[in-house]
C-alpha cells in the first residue's frame, strides 16, 4: 500500500500527539497542541533542596550542547562537579554579581573539593547558597557561615509566544523574540517555591483523548484509501 500525503500528515499528527502524552509527566514540559495544555500547571513537594518551582510563565535559563541559551520550567536541579545543573546535566545560568552576565553557578572549587559545602540549597529568591564551618582563632569556636554562590536567572516571553521544543523540557523562542530576563523577587518575577517540583503543562487525560482521535482519523483515512484502491481495481477489471 502506498502512503499519500494525507496519510503521512495523519501519521505525523499521531507522533506529535504521542509526544504530548509521553511528556505529560515530565516536569516543566509544555504541550505542543494548545487543546491539551493544562489550565493550571501544578507543582508538588520534593525532598530535594535544590528543586524549585518557577513562578507562572517564568523559565530558567540553561545551555544546550551547541552553546545556545535554552529555556526550561523544570526546576529539578542538582550539583554535578560543583556546578548547578538541570535534570539533563546542563548548567543552569544565573548571576554571580548584580552587574555580572548570566553564567553557570559554581560552588567554590576548593570548598567543593574539600567537602566543605553543606546544606546546598536554592532559596526563595533564587539564590544558590550553602553553609560551611569556620573557626574563630581567638576563641576556637566553630561557626556556620552562609555562602551565596549566585542568583538564578528567570526569563519571561511576550504573551502568546509559541516556543520551539529542543527536547522534552527545553525550549527556544522563535527568531526575533527577546525574553525579559530578571530574577525571582525582583519586582518583575514572583518568588520561587523551594523544595517543589513543577508539574507538566500537559493534561494527560485530554492528551490521550486527542491521541485516540488521531488514530481514529488515521484509520478512517486508511479505510478510505483502501476503498478507493478497491474501486479502482474493480474499474480496471471491468475495462479488461
Amino acid at each position: 500500500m502506498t502512503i499519500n500525503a494525507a496519510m503521512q500528515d495523519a501519521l505525523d499528527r499521531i507522533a506529535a500527539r504521542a509526544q504530548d502524552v509521553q511528556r505529560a509527566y515530565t516536569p516543566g514540559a509544555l504541550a505542543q497542541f494548545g487543546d491539551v495544555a493544562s489550565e493550571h500547571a501544578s507543582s508538588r513537594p520534593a525532598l530535594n533542596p535544590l528543586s524549585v518551582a518557577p513562578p507562572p510563565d517564568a523559565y530558567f535559563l540553561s545551555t544546550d550542547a551547541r552553546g545556545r541559551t535554552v529555556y526550561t520550567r523544570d526546576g529539578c536541579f542538582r550539583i554535578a562537579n560543583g556546578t548547578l545543573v538541570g535534570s539533563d546535566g546542563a548548567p543552569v545560568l544565573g548571576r554571580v554579581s548584580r552587574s555580572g552576565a548570566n553564567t553557570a553557578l559554581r560552588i567554590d572549587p576548593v570548598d567543593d573539593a574539600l567537602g566543605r559545602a553543606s546544606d546546598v540549597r536554592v532559596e526563595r529568591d533564587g539564590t544558590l547558597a550553602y553553609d560551611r564551618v569556620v573557626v574563630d582563632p581567638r576563641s576556637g569556636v566553630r561557626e556556620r557561615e552562609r555562602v551565596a554562590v549566585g542568583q538564578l536567572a528567570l526569563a519571561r516571553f511576550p504573551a502568546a509566544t509559541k516556543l520551539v521544543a529542543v527536547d522534552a523540557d527545553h525550549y527556544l523562542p522563535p527568531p526575533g523574540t527577546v525574553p525579559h530576563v530578571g530574577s525571582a523577587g525582583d519586582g518583575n518575577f514572583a518568588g520561587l517555591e523551594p523544595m517543589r517540583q513543577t508539574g507538566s503543562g500537559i493534561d494527560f487525560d485530554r492528551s490521550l483523548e486527542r491521541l485516540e482521535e488521531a488514530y481514529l482519523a488515521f484509520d478512517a483515512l486508511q479505510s478510505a484509501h483502501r476503498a478507493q484502491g478497491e474501486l479502482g481495481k474493480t474499474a480496471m477489471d471491468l475495462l479488461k
Partner: protein
Amino acid sequence: MLPLSAACLVASAVRETLTGLFGEAVSLRLFEPVIPTPEAWRAIAADATIYRVRSSSADAAIIVRPRDAAVLAAAAFGECDARSDVLSVLERTVLERTVRAIAAQFAPLCGAGTLETTIQSDRDVAGFVTFFELSIDGPARARIGVALSRDPVPEAKPEITIEDLFGLPVELAVRIDAGVHPAAVLGSLEPGDVLWLPGGTPRGTLRAAGRPLAAGECGVHGRYYALALDRTLTGRDEPV
C-alpha cells in the same frame, strides 16, 4: 593532622600582621586543617600562585588564588576590592611582601628560630600533606591557603629560663623545732599557757610551699625576728 589550636595560633599571628600592613583592624577566621585528596590538591593549586616557605623542620606553602591575590594587593593600598585579577608589577611586589610577612608567622608550625623564608613561585604541591585556609572577612574579603609538608613534631625545649622566674613572689615560712613534750602536756594546753622551747637558740627551717630550702638559728636582729642561715637544703633534704 595539624591540631586546630596550632592553626588558630598562626591565624591570630597573621591577623595581627595584616592589621599592621593594612593599617586597620582585620577580621580573620580559618577553615579547619584537613588532609586533601590528590584531586582536592589539584583544585587547591589550580591557577593559584604558590609561595614555598622552606625551614629546617617542615616546608610550608602559601597558596593564593588569582582573585584573592588581587584583593590582598588592593587591600595593601587601602582598597576593599580589586578592579582586575591581573596584577601589575607593583601589586605583585606588594603581594610578595605581604606573603613574606605572613610567612614569618609560621614559626610555630615550621620550627622556631630557624625559619628560612626562601619564597618562590611553585605550581607543584606534591609532597604537602596538611592544608588549612585563612578567611579574611574585612577590610577586604580574601582567602589564603596554607599547606604543610608534614605536621609539626612536638619539640621539647626549655622555653622558660630560671631568670624568667626571678620576679615571681614566693611565700616563705620558717618552721621552728619545738622539741619533745609528753602527750599529757599537749592534751592540757590552753590559751595563756607558755610552752618552753628546748634550751639554747632554737633552730628553724626555711620552707617554700612546704619544701625545705635552708636551715639556721632563730633569733632577733635589730627590731625583727630573724633566721641566721647556716645550711642550704636541696628541697628533698630534711634538716637534721
